């Protein structure tokens, strides 16, 4: 319901840009939103685009749900990517069945490790995690660059990229002649498991209690700091797996540009999805669709690539506005 309405309003707002760029707005919107879903090839590409933000969306949602504002998924993703590349270069002798779990576990641990300092500062000393997680993002990118400019620079090209990871460390493709890889399954599995834990287990109930009222949770004897710490580390671990997924599923090596802000997009995915796991899945797929659509629409319509960004941003704003209006109407109706 929300999405179609949001699309229509976005259409009205952004048509002026599309027309200014010299294209037919109806055609443009078809290409932005619908076209990617109409062919199997592009549909699979939507899944490829959605994969990293499904991870980061889930990571952010879990942390926010616990009342821990992890703005550092970007840095945690990069930490996971570093670990994946490091391990991927040395596990060549092992069969995939052994190598892949090592990669995923290593990336998760690296993501959690990158999340550890802010989490400890928060629970031990009450230092605000927004500042620390946010400021560690550029630091993680600098670490990637330091490795790529230094010891890991690809000896073959001299370009700041790592050497390729071993073939046995690559995440296998799922569909022949497409780039959809095992990372997607991993992301969806994590979303499913997270959904189960949050809604169906005592740990999840504790997380929800701590997140929405830490005082009441503490009064009831729940371990508030422990829950926060665990949520922060799990969040970091999942974001780290996004890094593994991109390195081992798409790039086959560590590069400086592998993220394109997936950590920040995760915040959008998580909040757009109402911090619920089904919501994260839906929002992640929507944004994946938009990314694929924007990429080809701009070319097919011969309009500058920025128009795609404008449409994406507007759609995002209109959607969040529509959600706000709907939730308000619902609450006033309930009040009557």
């Amino acid at each position, binding site marked *: 319901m929300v999405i179609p309405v949001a699309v229509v309003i976005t259409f009205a707002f952004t048509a002026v840009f599309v027309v200014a760029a010299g294209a037919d707005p109806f055609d443009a919107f078809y290409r932005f939103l619908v076209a990617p879903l109409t062919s199997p090839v592009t549909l699979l590409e939507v899944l490829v685009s959605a994969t990293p933000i499904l991870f980061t969306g889930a990571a952010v949602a879990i942390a926010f749900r616990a009342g821990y504002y992890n703005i550092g998924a970007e840095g945690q993703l990069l930490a996971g990517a570093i670990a994946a590349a490091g391990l991927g270069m040395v596990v060549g002798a092992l069969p995939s069945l052994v190598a892949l779990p090592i990669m995923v576990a290593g990336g998760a641990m690296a993501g959690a490790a990158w999340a550890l300092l802010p989490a400890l500062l928060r629970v031990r000393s009450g230092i605000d995690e927004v500042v620390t997680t946010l400021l560690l993002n550029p630091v993680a990118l600098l670490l990637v*660059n330091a490795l790529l400019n230094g010891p890991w620079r690809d000896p073959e090209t*001299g370009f*700041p990229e790592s050497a390729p990871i071993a073939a046995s460390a690559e995440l296998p493709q799922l569909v022949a002649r497409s780039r959809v890889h095992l990372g997607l399954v991993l992301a969806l599995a994590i979303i499913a498991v997270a959904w189960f834990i949050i809604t169906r287990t005592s740990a999840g109930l504790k997380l929800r209690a701590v997140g929405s009222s830490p005082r009441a949770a503490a009064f009831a004897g729940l371990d508030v700091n422990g829950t926060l710490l665990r949520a922060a580390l799990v969040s970091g671990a999942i974001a780290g797996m996004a890094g593994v997924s991109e390195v081992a599923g798409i*790039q086959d090596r560590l590069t400086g540009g592998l993220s394109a802000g997936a950590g920040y997009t995760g915040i959008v995915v998580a909040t757009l999805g109402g911090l619920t796991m089904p919501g994260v899945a839906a929002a992640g797929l929507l944004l994946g669709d938009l990314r694929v659509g924007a990429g080809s629409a701009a070319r097919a319509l011969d309009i500058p690539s920025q128009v795609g960004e404008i449409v994406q941003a507007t759609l995002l704003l209109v959607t969040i506005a529509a959600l706000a209006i709907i939730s308000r109407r619902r609450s006033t109706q309930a009040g009557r």
Partner: protein
Amino acid sequence: QTAAPASPGSSGSAPAGSAEGSAESGALEVFGAFATQIEEPWDGVIHAALEKEQQAGGVTYDFTDDIGYAGDMERVLGEIAAQEQPAVIFGDAFGNEEAVRRVAKDYPDIAFIFGSGGGPADPNLSVFDNWIHEPAYLAGMLAGGLTESDVLGVVGGFPVPEVNRITNAFIAGAQETNPEVEVKVTFINSWFDPAAAKEAALAQVDAGADVLYAERFGVIEAADERDLLTIGNMSDQQDLAPENVITSVTWNMTPTVEYVIDQVQAGSYTAQDLKDFSMVGKGGAALAPINMDATGGIPQELLDQVTAKEGAIRDGTFRVDITESAPPGSVIPPSE
């Protein structure tokens, strides 16, 4: 890591890239596929040459930019090949090396001409790079001869081979005309961020530098503000600070573009390394006209030295060394 998507309908259609195909429509279809926006200088040079070619007639030119480094290149390039079916695709493969190579392999009838640190790949992937170390060497000679403090500054984006070799060549040139010279080198860790580049340049000026080589945007602005001499990069940038820019180290893709298009039209295109077309010998690299109005003027003796060296490079009697390792922050003259 897998084959690029091919849209089902397109595989059977006749390759538009063949010489006969384009002869029918009258003009050769050329496409640009750029990882950055075309405002970025490197891709901007390729874009400018292709636009010029279109204006000259004989080809139609279309492009997509801002594809990024986060895994979209493979999809976008695949879509371009399958849907637009151009005869030639120009672009840069840095940071997207494997993706470009996979797509090129899938579309053997299209000529792929990509900036790359790797070698060509049969049958259809040719590589080029900006081999502008020769004019950089000449610029170094000028800078070394003009400095009064015996300290020069270079501000670059990342220590990638392309930037390293022009920086090293610049240093070598400076050392030729001024054995006492010290060269400060700062990488700002970004392809843009002119404010950081300017601050890096000012830090070098504070440390004594009085002639600056502006590998990135922002440095000329610093020279303008402090009224110092500076050297532009990529294109002739004298108009940015008419009294301060002595000359620019320029790259010109037109020789490469013309050569490739001739070959394709003649049906004799093969995969190759197009390096030579980006060097001084074939007009792909040059020192922009030296600005005789620059503050303080330029000694005739120095001009003669540079002109002589340029001639030596042109007729092959002098070869500028290619050094692709990253220079340190301060290159100090070898003692004794």
